[in-house]
C-alpha cells in the first residue's frame, strides 16, 4: 500500500487571519514535497486550483521543480483539469518533468475538477463540459500511448494533429495516466471502459460507501477486456496526523473551518459546524485525522472495502501552520506507513 499527500497549495495566514502572499504557498509546497521524499513517502499529488487561498494553478511546474529536488517519491497531478487545458501542453509538461526526474516517477491524473473556475479563466463554455472532457481525455490518451513521437488525432474541441511531433517522450514510453472522480457511477464506468487506473476523491460521508463504485470500475474493466497493472484504485481524503488524536483535531479544525467559510461564501454553504467536523474526523467518517495508530487502522479498514493500492491525504487547508503540515507528512511516512504494512500483513 502506497501512502501519500496531495495539496492544492495553501496560502499561509497572518495571526489576524488575513492571507499572506500566494508565492509563499508555492514555496511551502515545494519544501513539503522535498521533506516527503526524504522521509520515504510514496506519492505527492498537486491539484490544479486557481483561487487565492489555494493557488497551485500549475501542477506541471511544481512537479518539474520537485522532480529535480527529489529522489524516489512519485509525483502526480490531483487532478489536471484537462477540459480547459491543452492536452498537448499538459503531456509535454509532465513528460518534461519525467525526463528531469530520471523517469518513472511522474504521473498525470486527469479530472473534471470540483469547481468550474477554469471555464471563465480560460474562456471555455460550460455547456461544452462533457464534450471537452471526453475529447481532451481521448487526445491525452492518444498522445500518451503513441508508439512514436508523431501523433495523429482529430476532434472538434481543438485543431487536429496530423502526424505532428509531441515531445519529449516519457523515459519509460508512457506516463501513468489516472482518472480522478468524486464518486459518480458513470465516471467509474468510463475509467473501466478505457482501462485507466481510477482515483476516488472522498470528501465526505462514509468512505466505505465507495466500495460499490470500485467494484463497478473493476467489473467494467474486466468486461471490456482490460486486465493487468493499470486496473487499480487510489483514494484521496482529507486528513492530518499528529502525535496524539487531540493534537491532530486541534491542528486541523481551524484550517477546516477557514476552508468551509471561504467555500461557503462562494457556494452559499451554512456556517461550519464543529459537531459535523468531529463526526467526520472519527471512524467511519471521511477525515483521516488522528494519531498514527488510528490513521493506519482506518486506512487498512478502508482497504478491506476498496482494495486500493494508494491512499493519500490533503492536509494543508485553510492556512494550516506549515510546521504542522511538515510534521504530519513525516509521521505519515515514518509512523503510519510501517503500521499499515504490519496490519495488512497480519490480516
Amino acid at each position, binding site marked *: 500500500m502506497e501512502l501519500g499527500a496531495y495539496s492544492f497549495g495553501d496560502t499561509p495566514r497572518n495571526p489576524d487571519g488575513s492571507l499572506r502572499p500566494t508565492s509563499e504557498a508555492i514555496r511551502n509546497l515545494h519544501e513539503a514535497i522535498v521533506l516527503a521524499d526524504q522521509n520515504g513517502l510514496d506519492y505527492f499529488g498537486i491539484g490544479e486550483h486557481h483561487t487565492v487561498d489555494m493557488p497551485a494553478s500549475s501542477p506541471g511546474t511544481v512537479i518539474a521543480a520537485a522532480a529535480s529536488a527529489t529522489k524516489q517519491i512519485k509525483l502526480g497531478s490531483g487532478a489536471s483539469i484537462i477540459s480547459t487545458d491543452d492536452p498537448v501542453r499538459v503531456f509535454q509538461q509532465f513528460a518534461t518533468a519525467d525526463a528531469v526526474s530520471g523517469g518513472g516517477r511522474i504521473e498525470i491524473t486527469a479530472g473534471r475538477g470540483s*469547481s*468550474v473556475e477554469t*471555464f471563465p479563466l480560460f474562456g471555455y463554455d*460550460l*455547456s461544452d*463540459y462533457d464534450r471537452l472532457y471526453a475529447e481532451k481525455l481521448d487526445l491525452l490518451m492518444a498522445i500518451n500511448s503513441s508508439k512514436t513521437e508523431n501523433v495523429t488525432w482529430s476532434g472538434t474541441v481543438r485543431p487536429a494533429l496530423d502526424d505532428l511531433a509531441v515531445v519529449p517522450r516519457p523515459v519509460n514510453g508512457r506516463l501513468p495516466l489516472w482518472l480522478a472522480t*468524486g*464518486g*459518480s*457511477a*458513470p465516471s*467509474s*464506468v468510463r475509467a473501466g471502459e478505457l482501462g485507466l487506473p481510477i482515483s476516488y476523491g472522498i470528501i*465526505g*460521508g*462514509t468512505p466505505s*460507501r465507495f466500495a*460499490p*463504485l470500485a*467494484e*463497478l470500475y473493476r*467489473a*467494467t474493466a474486466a*468486461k471490456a477486456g482490460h486486465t493487468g497493472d493499470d486496473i487499480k484504485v487510489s483514494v484521496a481524503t482529507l486528513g492530518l496526523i499528529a502525535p496524539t488524536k487531540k493534537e491532530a483535531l486541534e491542528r486541523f479544525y481551524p484550517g477546516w473551518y477557514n476552508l468551509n467559510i471561504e467555500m461557503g461564501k*462562494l*457556494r*452559499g*454553504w*451554512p456556517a461550519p459546524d464543529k459537531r459535523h467536523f468531529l463526526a467526520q474526523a472519527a471512524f467511519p467518517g471521511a477525515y483521516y485525522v488522528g494519531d498514527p495508530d488510528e490513521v493506519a487502522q482506518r486506512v487498512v479498514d478502508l482497504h478491506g472495502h476498496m482494495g486500493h493500492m494508494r491512499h493519500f491525504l490533503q492536509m494543508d487547508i485553510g492556512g494550516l501552520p506549515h510546521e504542522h503540515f511538515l510534521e504530519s507528512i513525516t509521521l505519515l511516512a515514518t509512523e503510519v506507513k510501517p503500521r499499515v504494512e504490519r496490519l495488512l500483513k497480519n490480516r
Partner: protein
Amino acid sequence: MSAPQNHPAEPRTIGVLGAGRVGTAVGRQALKAGYDVLVATSQPADDIALMVQIMTPGAIAVTAAEAAGSDIVVVAVPLHKYRTLNPELLAGKTVIDAMNYWAPVDGEIDDFENEDRTSSEIVQAYLARSNVVKTLNHIGYHDLEVDGQEPGSERRRALALAGDHQDAKELVSRFINRIGYDAVDAGPLAAGRSFQPGTEIFNGSHTADQLRSILAALREPARA
C-alpha cells in the same frame, strides 16, 4: 419503511432518470422501501445494466421511455442537461425535480441566469404537460440513505415539496413518507424558492414542525 400496499393511489414503480450520485441514492432508498425501481440514462439500457446492477442492486436498467411509464419519475440529471428530457414521454406523469441551479458549483446556465422563476418552474415550463413536484433537492445524497426513519419516529427528518398539481403532490408525499421522511407541502411550485440552494431549509436538517415554522415565517412578510 414497510412495503407499499396494493392500492390504486399508491405509487409502486419509481423511475429514475440519471445514474449519478443523486439518482443512485434515490434508487437505493426506493428499493429499500419496497418499490420497483427502473433506472435510465441517455445510454442504451444494455450499456448501463452492469452499472445499475452494482450501484442499485435490484433495480432494472431501462430506456428513458420505459422509465417514464413509472408511477413517479425522479429527474436527477445535471440541470444543464434538462433539455435532453423528452416532454412527450413525460406528459401526464408525476415528475420529481431533484435538480438544483447552483451556479458557483456547476457554473452559470443561460436558461436559469437572470431569471426570476425558480429552477423547477423553468423545468415545469419545459415539461409543460407533466406534473412537476420539487423535492429531494435539499437533502444530501449521503444523508438521504442515512437519515430516513419509520413514520412516527421522534425528531424524524422532513422534506419540503412544492408543486402546482395537488394529486401529484399527494402521490409524492406518500413516496417521501415511505422512503423515511415526513413530507411538508410548501405550496405551489414557486414556493420551492424557500428550499433552493443557499436557503435555511437547503442548508439544514429539519423536522416537520421546524419546516412548517420556517415556511410560515417566510410567508409572513408577504401578508404584511
